[in-house]
């Protein structure tokens, strides 16, 4: 059992006061404890942005990578050592902008990762430009009035359509459900996404705590059937006076690792190529 003390971060937190990331970090710590796996078997991989600093604030294996590239780095690490529980911390700017093609291809591969999208609809760390998840009309320094001239990306719908096999939405302000979704996402074998709504206190005047508190409702409390893909898709387009939170869709399909030439009884990281077999390959090429 991992203790809270063991997870204590080695680095002072740099997020703004009231940031939605605090809720996500708190939930992540609880989820890690609840997972009940050895601490060294957890790996956090992040991109760039406020979201992606999260791994520095929890004492676990981690790789803080490049803007948008967390998913392929995580994919490589997972396939080389499938014993690892690999979690990706990404933001909407990071994973749905620069990293979007990796996101959709990872979904189609059903690679066994848990992706937590810290979704605040704004580019926080670069000081408030509109992000891929910003609402149409969102006014920022790079989208002066009448505001962002495009609709936000829909990570839930795209994950479902793309082939992800666990797709949920959490809210930084609802710890209890968020922890459950995180635990389930990590335990799920396949590509699992939790789109986490989080206010950016400093920049986003629209997607605030109040905004979400007034609109978020639980899919599960309303009896949503997460095995119904079309229904899940339909729900994923609901984003207005009411915003659904919880598990949209879950299915069981072979994951990427099961389709690759991985060692049967060990891991690539420890596996040694049989030189005699390789010499046979060479010998077969002899004229």
């Amino acid at each position, binding site marked *: 059992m991992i203790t809270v003390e063991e997870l204590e971060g080695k680095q002072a937190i740099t997020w703004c006061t009231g940031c939605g990331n605090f809720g996500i970090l708190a939930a992540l710590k609880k989820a890690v404890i609840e997972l009940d796996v050895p601490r060294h078997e957890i790996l956090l991989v992040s991109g760039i942005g406020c979201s992606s600093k999260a791994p520095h604030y929890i004492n676990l294996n981690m790789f803080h990578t490049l803007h948008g590239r967390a998913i*392929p780095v995580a994919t490589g*690490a997972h396939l080389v050592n499938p014993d690892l529980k690999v979690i990706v911390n990404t933001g909407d700017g990071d994973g749905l902008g620069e990293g979007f093609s990796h996101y959709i291809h990872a979904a189609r591969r059903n690679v066994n990762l848990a992706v937590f999208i810290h979704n605040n609809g704004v580019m926080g760390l670069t000081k408030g430009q509109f992000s891929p998840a910003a609402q149409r009309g969102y006014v920022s320094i790079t989208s002066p009035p009448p505001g962002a001239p495009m609709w936000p990306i829909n990570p839930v719908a795209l994950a479902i359509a793309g082939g992800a096999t666990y797709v949920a939405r959490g809210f930084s302000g609802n710890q209890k459900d968020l922890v459950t979704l995180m635990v389930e996402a990590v335990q799920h074998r396949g590509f699992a996404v939790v789109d986490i709504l989080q206010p950016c206190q400093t920049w986003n005047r629209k997607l605030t705590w109040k905004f979400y508190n007034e609109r978020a409702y639980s899919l599960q409390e309303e009896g949503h059937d997460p095995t119904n893909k079309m229904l899940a898709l339909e729900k994923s387009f609901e984003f207005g006076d009411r915003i659904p939170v919880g598990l949209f869709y879950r299915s069981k399909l072979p994951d990427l690792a099961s389709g690759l030439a991985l060692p049967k009884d060990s891991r690539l990281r420890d596996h040694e190529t049989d*030189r005699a077999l*390789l010499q046979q390959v060479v010998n077969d090429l002899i004229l």
Partner: protein
Amino acid sequence: MDFTINTGGQAGQGIDTIGDLISQVFIKTGFYVHVLKDFESRIRGGYNFNQIRVSDSPIYAATDKVDLIIAMTKDAIIEQRSRLTEGGVIIFDDRIEFDDLESCHLSVPLEKTAKEVGGSTRMTNAAALGAALAVLQFPFKLVVNALTAKFERKGEKVVASNVAVAKALYDLTTEQFSGTCSQNLSSVKKGPSKDLLFINGNRALALGAMASNVKWISAYPMSPSTQVFQDIVSQAHKLRIGTLQAEDELSAITMGLGASFAGARSFVTTSGGGFSLMVEALGLAAITETPIVIYNAQRPGPATGLPTRTEQSDLLFMAHASQGEFPRILLAPKDPVEGFEVATRAFNLADKFQVPVMILGDQYYADSMMNIPRLDVTGVNVDRGSIATEGPDPEYLRYKLTKDGVSPRAFPGDAGKTVVNSGNVHLENGHITENPDLRNAMVEKLMKKVPHILKTLNPPTIYGKKIADITLLTWGSTWGSVYEVVNLLNAEGVSINQLHFCDVYPLRTTTLKTVFKKAKKVVAVEQNATSQFARLVRMETGLSVGHHINKYDGRQMTAQWVMTQLKEAGIA
């Protein structure tokens, strides 16, 4: 004895299989063979050729002249006939309408005979072989032995059909060909060869990587590198290697970095355009000190350039790619034998110094085939470099400051250790810092590796006399043609040698400095427009190369071409 056969036709006509069969028969009967592959970026049609040079002594490059042309299309006659030597012969398939006939031309039913005698146009290669060998008066009995050896795994019937098709054309050609070919092989004395591989640079690299225990390769297909990826994928199930065709090159290399971070030797393969996409992650590999081996099979750029042709124009790009400053290693094998050895060294260097190692090939290196001795994969030394002691260590520091800049690696999943990697400037424990002293310490940590790398890399090689009036300066795949120039000119009494680099960066300068002191003329011979290696030499030594020979039409330089350039420039 040294002659060249050119087999040409459209893409999809089996030009490679004709070339392969002819080459294999000559190798089986004891000759040295070098094959240049020239093709267009298309699936069907166009004009492609294999140029097969055959000799009774070792050869390392293609030549300009052709002694025998085997044409499957009219283009294959027209495009090549100006290169035909005196006494050369052109054989072409009788379906080609061509009336500009000369005495050295011979029209024979290649495809027709393959179909009628062998039962399939797939045996056109055996037909072409029969016709070619008849013109050369090569004893048919040797052909039978070679064909038997080649096809016996496929069964007696396949052997018999191929022999029958070859024999039919051999007899027909002997009967119909009234000219004399400049080459007469009727009294060849070569015995059958043993233990030879007929492979190209790409395949040698793939074998070298697999022998080095590569456990991860991710790539996006890109000519002329793709074969390396395909070769490894084709053995993945047998040898248990993780392989993935990624959505783009940036994904390919970042997957490779994730795999390497988690403990597997990782490899990515591409060409210059794909490497352009990878550059962002090159910097990540560098700052996180994650070993990775990158293969760039160069082709003429910029942008799409000439997708299936050759150039050495990415050297300075690769030596300086990415923002920031960090050590890296560049290796440029000259031929398949060296390619195998370079691959095995590349993985050891990457692990030992925890830096990106880049292998620079080019289309000529990648695709040209030659016979080489059997490769021994069992004796390859695998050195994973500095690895942290097993067992719990709560104080483990991934970036521990050490004397030589290299810190012991641990991997996520190692019990009792926490491994922290960051692309930000970091503390010894891997977490972010903006402290100026630590920034200095981390930059110096990386730079400390350079002198150790230089000591480990191979020095350049001088071919010819140690001191000469003229020194030709080369790197990578142009070695063979220039080596031939040195031999030819030495025989004419010219004082000339060659200083050749395989390990191109960081640059070892001792031999260079001596050569610059002793030689009257130093000539850079490069397959690019701007003498990139000569520029690198000046950057690293302050020494200027006085003469430049550059080729950038996408076709590999030959010895004859280099000699003409040397003469025209009044150098030799």
